[in-house]
């Protein structure tokens, strides 16, 4: 039977007693993992799922959840990990967009899920009535272009984007990372990012392609630096891939040195050199690297942090040279490549670039360079220096990343404008200190008027958008200033409230 390289390598290791997936409450050996995958696969087979059907995971991150994810992958089912902390309206919008055949859920969450969705449920912790089949059967042939995972992201119109990654997309990233960093079955991975973040493809999929073990932190554990550090020490973790904010938490106060850590990888946010220095001291034997790429392309450039980088205390770490699997161009607005040292939009062509946005062909088409199906215009801006190293500038649209979560300010404004007293809304990101970025909302409500219910706007946003999108400050205006052509004078609105601004992604 035809299998993708990803499936072949996931199934290649021997079914031995080596720990594959661990957490503080559950450990699955490689053998137990394969048995669990077989069980899930046959249960889903009996439910009549066909290749290409989507299975949404309304589950917290546990070894069992990851086993289900892998069982779907090796059987050609498309995994859609959901963020169970999102408001019900948001989950409903995501389920509408990706239209899964099943939603997987734990029995303790079944009631909560049933209240927001009437899609068929797959309760993962019910005892199956039939004996477990062995060995793991693969029911469908799977090709590199077949979809594997859908990751949900924000869209400006209020409609979520469903980013579809194929087996080939994921394998191209995994294969590059294993070669570039020299990772092996002896590495021990720590999974901090939730499964609906692209960073988890490294933690849970790459580790299992290698036959290595990965320790899965529960969401609550990731809130507390001492819990993460304890795990890094006790489990002798060798590879961590996380957003800079997470490393900032770990290094905010004096802590243990981690001699076992060999790879400390950063992605998802701008990395200040000062933070890289702190991490270098915490992990003196680690290779530090800054990885770049939106979810739509996964990692397409990488900067290996050198001693020279760490000698310079100010500024940010560059995002490095293009990975050997992809071509990265700086383009003008027409999609034409620009000369070195000229600023432009970062565009990517290569095998890691997403298949497309699920059920949104026009949106997919708009995101491509003309005539290149494996291309993506990131909307991020940057420039190549004389040495071919890519530097990140920021975005020129309304999308911002807050703590690794992509938020569309236009979407925040749209939700705020639904308030009956609000005629127009402008959202901005406020920075304070090095690692706190929050949203400030400006609302136009007309002269001599007050918001009838000041908590209603944050409440409406909380019901529809991720928690990081909820504003921490709201300023009301009689009228927004306009420019001579009648357009909204955004700069004036933002400047009027701006006191100090230290960084500006």
């Amino acid at each position, binding site marked *: 039977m035809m299998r993708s390289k990803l499936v072949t390598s996931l199934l290649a290791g021997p079914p031995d007693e080596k720990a594959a997936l661990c957490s503080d409450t559950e450990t699955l050996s490689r053998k137990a993992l394969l048995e669990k995958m077989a069980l899930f696969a046959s249960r889903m087979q009996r439910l009549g799922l066909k290749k290409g059907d989507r299975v949404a995971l309304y589950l917290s991150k546990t070894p069992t959840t990851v086993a289900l994810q892998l069982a779907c992958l090796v059987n050609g089912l498309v995994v859609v990990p959901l963020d169970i902390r999102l408001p019900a309206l948001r989950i409903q919008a995501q389920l509408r967009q990706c239209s899964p055949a099943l939603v997987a859920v734990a029995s303790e969450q079944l009631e909560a899920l049933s209240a927001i969705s009437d899609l068929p449920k797959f309760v993962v912790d019910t005892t199956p009535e039939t004996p477990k089949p062995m060995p793991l059967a693969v029911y469908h042939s799977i090709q590199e272009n077949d979809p594997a995972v859908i990751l949900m992201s924000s869209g400006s119109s209020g409609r979520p984007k469903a980013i579809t990654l194929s087996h080939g997309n994921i394998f191209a990233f995994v294969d590059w990372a294993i070669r570039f960093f020299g990772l092996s079955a002896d590495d021990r991975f720590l999974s901090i990012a939730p499964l609906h973040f692209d960073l988890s493809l490294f933690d849970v999929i790459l580790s299992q392609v290698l036959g290595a073990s990965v320790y899965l932190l529960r969401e609550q554990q990731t809130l*507390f630096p001492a819990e993460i550090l304890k795990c890094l020490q006790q489990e002798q973790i060798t590879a961590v891939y996380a957003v800079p904010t997470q490393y900032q938490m770990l290094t905010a106060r004096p802590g243990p040195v981690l001699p076992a850590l060999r790879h400390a990888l950063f992605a998802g946010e701008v990395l200040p050199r000062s933070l890289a220095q702190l991490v270098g001291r915490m992990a003196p034997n680690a290779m530090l690297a800054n990885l770049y790429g939106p979810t739509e392309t996964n990692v397409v450039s990488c900067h290996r942090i050198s001693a020279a980088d760490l000698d310079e205390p100010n500024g940010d770490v560059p995002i490095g040279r293009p990975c050997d699997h992809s071509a990265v161009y700086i383009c003008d607005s027409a999609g034409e490549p620009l000369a070195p040292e000229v600023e432009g939009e970062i565009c990517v062509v290569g095998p890691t670039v997403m298949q497309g946005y699920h059920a949104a062909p026009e949106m997919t088409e708009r995101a491509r360079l003309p005539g290149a199906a494996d291309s993506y215009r990131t909307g991020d801006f940057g420039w190549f220096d004389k040495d071919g190293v890519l530097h990140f500038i920021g975005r020129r649209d309304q999308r911002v990343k807050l703590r690794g979560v992509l938020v569309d300010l236009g979407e925040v404004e749209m939700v705020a404008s639904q308030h009956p007293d609000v005629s127009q809304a402008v959202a901005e990101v406020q920075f304070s200190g090095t690692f706190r970025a929050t949203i400030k909302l400006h609302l136009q409500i007309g002269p001599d008027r007050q918001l009838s219910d000041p908590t209603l706007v*944050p409440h409406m946003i909380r019901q529809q958008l991720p928690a*990081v999108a909820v504003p*921490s400050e709201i300023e009301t205006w009689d009228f927004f200033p306009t420019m001579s052509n009648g357009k909204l004078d955004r700069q004036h609105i933002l400047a009027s409230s701006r006191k100090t601004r230290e960084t500006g992604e």
Partner: protein
Amino acid sequence: MKRQDALNSIVDWIKAQSKPKFGDVEVSPETRLLELQLLDSLQIMDLVFFLEETSGQKIALEKLIGENFETPNAIAALICRAD
């Protein structure tokens, strides 16, 4: 720092912090902060700085674990125990 004073300032701080996101929430000494997800990771770090400022003492890294932040009472015990 007196336990009751510490508790009051912690409850006030949490109410003020959660107000923009959750509106006026009832916070009692036994409110299950982590189960309700009233605070995110950055707010927990801010809370630690706030506790250190108001109590005038450093909180050791190994104290920064979930069980010490489950309720306002647990957090108050964290800074009053260190006397």
